């Protein structure tokens, strides 16, 4: 199963993303305008383990990540060298994917795995004026995310215009 997380408007997504993005083999997470932000309660670890206590349309993102055993593709506008608020919100709300206990991985402390699946991570950052410093931050950020998810970075790319994505993720 593939997973696609993007912050495109519905009309953009329809025009730019391939038809395969909405097949049975790919789960798509997009912005329906209702997502609430993580409140830092750790309820997804100690109150309702593996599920967020906020029961909006984005309450089971950890479980969704666990179904991804192929590739996680993220398409996000670049904000200061990181993800856009919506994509970051999805990441923040998905921490039930990992276990609260710590392990030492690559000589650093990270969270233990909760699930056994493994995926590769591809990220496309878009924006008209992404600076070199932002690109450097973004590259390091995605590697840090991969260390925490215990996954592998397949590709990190930067595009000036979102219309370029059509060719890149065919």
């Amino acid at each position, binding site marked *: 199963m593939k997973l696609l997380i993007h912050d495109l408007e519905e009309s953009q997504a329809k025009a730019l993303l391939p038809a395969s993005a909405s097949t049975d083999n790919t789960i798509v997470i997009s912005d329906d305008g209702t997502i609430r*932000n*993580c*409140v*830092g*309660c*750790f309820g997804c*670890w*100690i*109150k309702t*383990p*593996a*599920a967020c206590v906020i029961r909006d349309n984005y309450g*089971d993102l*950890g*479980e969704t990540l*666990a179904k991804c055993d192929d590739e996680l593709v993220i398409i996000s506008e670049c*904000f*200061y*060298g*990181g*993800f*856009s*608020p*919506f994509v*970051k*919100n999805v*990441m*923040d709300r*998905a*921490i039930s994917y990992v*276990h*609260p*206990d*710590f392990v*030492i991985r690559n000589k*650093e*402390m*990270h969270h233990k795995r*909760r*699930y056994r699946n493994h995926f590769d991570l591809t990220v496309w950052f878009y924006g008209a004026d992404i*600076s070199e*410093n*932002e690109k*450097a*931050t973004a590259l*390091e*950020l995605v590697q*840090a*995310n991969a260390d*925490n998810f215990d996954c592998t970075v397949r590709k990190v790319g930067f595009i000036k215009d979102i219309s370029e994505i059509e060719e890149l993720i065919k």
Partner: protein
Amino acid sequence: MKIALINGSPKANGSVSALILQSLRERFPDHQEQRDDGACCTCSTCGSDTSGACGTCINTYHFSKPQINQQDLAELAACDTLVFAFPLYVDGIPSHLLSCLSQMEGYLKPLASKEMRVYAIVNCGFYEGRQNQHALDMMQNWCAKTRLIWGHGLGIGGGGSQAAIPETHPLKKGFSAAMNNMANYISNGRAADHAFIDPAIPRILYKIGGAMGWRQQIKVNGLKVRDLSLRK
């Protein structure tokens, strides 16, 4: 100098970021909160002059939602220094705070003549303070985009445990020194490279302590220890 201390934790109460800002606040004993009506706080900083000319007020803000109200934006725009404290979320800035920063960028960028310095303190649950580096880099990138002056970033590992220790405790030596440095940089408008601090206990003890903490907390919630590992 008008300073804004901005708590970027989404938690309404009891956040580590609030403790960190309180600790920093105590390093500016002569600075008072500006009154709600914007008048001078009549602190002792400028002696008997109560005109507000000294402008040494420190005000505290809490960004717990993804929007900032217009009054807070206007007050922040009048500050000389912004100090952010927030928790590390998935290697970066919490999403609600990211929305606030984007809103601030739109508001502050047109005020390009304003010389405003920005400092940030990020804390994480991981042992290594260095894991906060990407969030601090993003704050620095935000400054560049918003045309503000970046000052200094501090990354605190084991944030919760460090902030909760009494100020005079030997285990808080590194934390206190880093906060003294931060206060000094803010007072003098100085810039410095990011600094990172780890807890003053061995990593293995911190790791064991964390595991014990989660087990206690899940039992308090009426669940079993094995429920920590539930899968959906």
